[in-house]
């Protein structure tokens, strides 16, 4: 006799759905973590439905009870572009490598706004999802990953506007646009790399939340958003390009504008640096994720 069960009003539910006919059950071994571990890609694949719904949740929640909704995906970069064009283009007369300044800055703002939003969201993601983290197991990396992936929808919308703007300024789309998907991958890698580091740190030190806002302002100035990377002296170029956003933005301009300088040296450096940051981020995250539930 298994249980001394009470007779239930809905007893018929007891019938079906026993354990599946003796298939080999997976054994999970729970033990103290020692040392460093790489990402468990197989496990991640098993949780892709969770990633999908976390992304969906982020998207649905983001613009709930807003009037403009996804319009914000466009308004944000457009407003910054207008201000930049007035201040840096008209007043300060910064060089835009021969392109109209509005187009020049918008081509940079599209990936930049994505990056800054994704980084902010990812950094706060674990703390914001405290309830999930303390009540159920899943690969924690899905939380910052979902934050970064959800932003891609805004990026896509803004990119369509960017294409429209280039056509309006008389620049016709070229085959160079094929470089955009790899550039998007690079900016995702950059946001995820920095985002995982900061998300994990944020669990321990809530200072990170405030630091991120400051960090992003700072990052804007060391990225060629308002100005062209060609004004950086050649000798400093390799160091400068360690900032992954340099490669990304140079790439976007090269793909979309006429007369933009070749981005490939910067791109190579940026890609290497972004990959390194991502690896560090993932390893650090894996290293500390077991303690999230105890600390957050």
């Amino acid at each position: 006799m298994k249980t001394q069960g009470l007779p239930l009003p809905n007893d018929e539910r007891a019938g079906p759905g026993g354990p599946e006919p003796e298939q080999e059950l997976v054994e999970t071994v729970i033990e103290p973590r020692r040392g460093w571990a790489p990402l468990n890609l197989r496990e991640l694949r098993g949780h892709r439905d969770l990633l999908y719904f976390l992304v969906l949740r982020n998207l649905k929640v983001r613009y709930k009870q807003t009037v403009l909704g996804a319009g914000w995906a466009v308004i944000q970069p457009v407003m910054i572009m207008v201000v930049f064009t007035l201040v840096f283009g008209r007043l300060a007369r910064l060089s835009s490598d021969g392109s109209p300044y509005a187009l020049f800055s918008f081509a940079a703002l599209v990936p930049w706004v994505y990056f800054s939003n994704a980084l902010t969201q990812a950094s706060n993601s674990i703390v914001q999802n405290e309830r999930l983290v303390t009540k159920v197991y899943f690969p924690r990396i899905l939380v910052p990953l979902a934050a970064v992936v959800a932003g891609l929808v805004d990026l896509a919308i803004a990119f369509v506007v960017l294409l429209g703007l280039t056509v309006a300024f008389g620049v016709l789309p070229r085959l160079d646009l094929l470089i955009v998907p790899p550039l998007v991958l690079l900016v995702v890698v950059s946001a995820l790399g920095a985002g995982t580091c900061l998300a994990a740190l944020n669990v321990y030190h809530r200072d990170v939340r405030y630091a991120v806002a400051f960090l992003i302002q700072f990052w804007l100035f060391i990225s060629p958003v308002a100005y062209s990377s060609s004004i950086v002296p050649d000798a400093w170029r390799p160091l400068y390009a360690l900032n992954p956003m340099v490669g990304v933005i140079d790439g976007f301009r090269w793909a979309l504008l006429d007369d933009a300088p070749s981005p490939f040296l910067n791109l190579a450096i940026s890609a290497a640096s972004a990959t390194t940051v991502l690896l560090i981020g993932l390893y650090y995250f894996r290293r500390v994720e077991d303690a999230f539930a105890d600390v957050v």
Partner: protein
Amino acid sequence: MSGGDVAVRVDGLSKRFRLGEGVLRGNLGETLSRAFARPLRRSTANAERRRGEYFWALSDATFEVRQGEVLGIVGANGAGKSTLLKILARITRPTAGTARVRGRVGALLEVGTGFHPELSGRDNVFLNGVVLGMKRHEISRKFDDIVEFAGVERFLDTPVKRYSSGMAVRLGFAVAAHLEPEVLIVDEVLAVGDAEFQRKCLGKMDDVARAGRTIIFVSHNMNAVQRLCPRSLEIKHGQITADGPTREVVQGYLAQSASGNAAERLLEVAHLPRSDTGQIRVLAVMCVAQADELALQPYPDGPLEISLLLESDAPRSIGSVSVVLRDQLGTTLVNADSIQLGESVRVVQGRTLVRVRIRALHLTPGMYVLGWSIADPLGTVYDFVERAVHVEVMDAPSAGLGVRPSGDGAVTCNFAITTEPAS
């Protein structure tokens, strides 16, 4: 160590926490350097230095759960039950020891985990489902059942923030109830719902158990534990102090008596706020059921003896010593008043022990509140406390167990049923 039929094998499992501010102490740099330095020199010096600041929430837990077994875990708050469950659910890592779990684990530590208030009921079913480990197609397949079980068909597209708390809980439980893990871990989820909801939970868990799945069930509800689990563990101060048939474990646990529960223990009540003269005062109270089976806890139609330790400033003859049991809503269910017996109660100067023996307590299982009044019929109230201590009436372990239908009355009655052919 037996062969393949062990679903959960826990071996020397321990978990240590840092006390006080814990990990939050120290600066950013320290956190980083700790993380990166540890693999190089395995922090022995550090651990040695900080030993005093640690606290073992769970130490050296070892046990096995067979496939299809329903294991109860009892223990006071903070005893380490939840820590054990969190380790088994992989939410947190053990500090030492291992646990091996065969098959898919479903952990129900909260109803509606992952619910987002802004999202519709429909969205939340899917979100909650994948969070609990279901696949998308699995949820789609069971969606109609889940919604029907929760009874929220009309509100599927309403944001959950507009749900009543009862509806949200029902929806959360409905999702969890359709999880089909090999090992189900349940923590105190019964505490949140109303009686009807609790009954539904218990019923569903019973189904799961009968379907041959393994359940580990933590609860403060001794009725539920006894009903569902043939075997239980008791955890105390992070250690497993008992492992065996549930009735024995529960009796042992209750004998140590949870605080606020006046079973077989004089409970100090002198500090309770009063509105009275203070000439006579109840210092302590004790309830003893004196039943053979559940030694201490009263059960339906069983006896209950309530002892009041009185202190009086002078010898007196009190007209009315009355002991009152109320339900949680405050309705008076039992009033054993000496005035009904036509006797006055004599007390000496100093302390007197007064015993009120209720021969049969016609209350159904549940929590009740004990109060009393010590008064003179002429109008002097010496001592009056409306809500002093909790008294839990248990299901009688043998006869009552497993045959209690839904919809209990407030009181029990002694009845028989006969039939005769009628034309």
